[in-house]
């Protein structure tokens, strides 16, 4: 037992008393200004752990093997629509379009949460995801760099070239996290919090920001266009939806280890 504990101690990098699994990265606390919100105020994001790569077909296959209620032919319509895991060859067979190391897609929000619960993780919140996704390979916040945003936008405009790649081949960002951009879209826990409407003045400006391209014609807003696409996409989702390029990754609170 002691040997195992020692080994774990070596593998896990200490972060203010917390242990980090090898497949996750610690995202340090900080603040960011979301593209849309009640106000333009910065939002505080606590430090958290984020999976370095999205959940793969192989990992999800092992989950449905152990949880028959989440197999394609068993899943309840409340939890996933008809397209759930449609790209797999069968209930427990990945097939040629779904390499084991590629991100699993066509999973609903409910299914993603069930998977993550089974491994002791959770979905990242929208704030956490957006906050982490500002990083490039050298900076924690590259979001004011037009080149960084242009790269993301380029992917958004590209046709999907068939089979998804292994996310481990994507470039790691400064936190060691890969493929937040460029491979798939990802579920967040509170995807359904968008579309604030009403008569309040800030709401009216929000709607202008969301729906009128002319309203986005300042340099800052153009820079945010990549984020705008993500917010717009999320606001079109429902919990049971499954989408061709929509996958997920896990997150975790940082809990101090017992002394």
């Amino acid at each position, binding site marked *: 037992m002691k040997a195992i504990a020692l080994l774990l101690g070596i593998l896990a990098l200490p972060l203010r008393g917390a242990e980090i699994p090898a497949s996750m990265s610690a995202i340090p606390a900080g603040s960011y200004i979301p593209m849309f919100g009640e106000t333009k105020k910065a939002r505080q994001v606590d430090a958290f752990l984020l999976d370095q790569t999205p959940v793969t077909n192989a990992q999800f296959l092992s989950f449905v093997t152990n949880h028959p209620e989440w197999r394609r032919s068993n899943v309840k*319509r409340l939890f996933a629509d008809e397209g759930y895991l449609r790209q797999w060859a069968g209930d427990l067979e990945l097939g040629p379009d779904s390499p084991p190391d590629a991100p699993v897609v066509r999973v609903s929000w409910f299914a993603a949460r069930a998977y993550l619960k089974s491994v002791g993780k959770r979905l990242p919140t929208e704030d956490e995801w957006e906050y982490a996704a500002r990083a490039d390979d050298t900076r924690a916040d590259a979001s004011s760099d037009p080149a960084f945003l242009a790269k993301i936008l380029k992917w958004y405009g590209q*046709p999907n070239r068939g089979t998804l790649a292994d996310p481990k081949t994507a470039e790691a960002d400064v936190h060691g996290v890969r493929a937040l951009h460029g491979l798939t879209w990802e579920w967040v826990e509170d995807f359904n919090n968008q579309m604030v*409407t009403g008569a309040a003045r800030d709401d009216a400006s929000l709607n202008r920001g969301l729906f009128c391209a002319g309203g986005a014609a300042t340099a800052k807003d153009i820079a945010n266009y990549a984020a705008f696409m993500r917010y717009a996409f999320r606001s079109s989702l429902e919990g049971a939806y499954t989408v061709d390029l929509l996958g997920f990754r896990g997150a975790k609170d940082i809990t101090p280890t017992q002394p």
Partner: protein
Amino acid sequence: MKRHLIPFIALAMSLHAAESEKKNSCCDEKAAPGAEGHKLEAAAAAKGSIYDFEHEWTDQSAKPFRLSSLRGKPIVLAMGYASCQFACPRIMADLMAIERGLSDAEKTSTHFVFITIDPEKDTPEALAAFLETYKVDSLRWHAVRGSADDTREISVALGVKFKAIEGGDFAHSNVITLLDSDGTIIHRQQGLGEKPEDLIKALRGALKP
């Protein structure tokens, strides 16, 4: 087929949503800036039985409560929070308008459930006081709270969007959902101050043997 169209689909859907907002807005005329002006349009409702959730709630008497315990009877369901000054009293008024439209026999076969989106503040005591304000019959009225996790999950299934905003308030969509005796969503009344006739009609359909 393999074209990457998601962003454009998403955009189109958002634009569509923007259109329908205009139509559905109930509170545009007089709402002042502030919490009462914030509301979230509802998303679509889930298919299948809500009983498939294994959520355990706590009701206003601090007793465990499962929606599936009401199996066999239709449920009129809404989400909100007790300290809400604007929308939730109106949701309660709408729920009570539905109840008033029922015969005594229909009333006893129907349950009303209010799920709080603010489980932290809405203790069973707070929920009991909330129901007390409206003098409703606690045999068929249930005000319940659950974990943040379960609350988020059922809100997604009901298509109720909510978001904490400043000052302890929430922006949320105003939806009254009708579940049939098997827990399937069969009707939704969206917005505030809507006439209850359509929902009552659907409810009577669900009450038929």
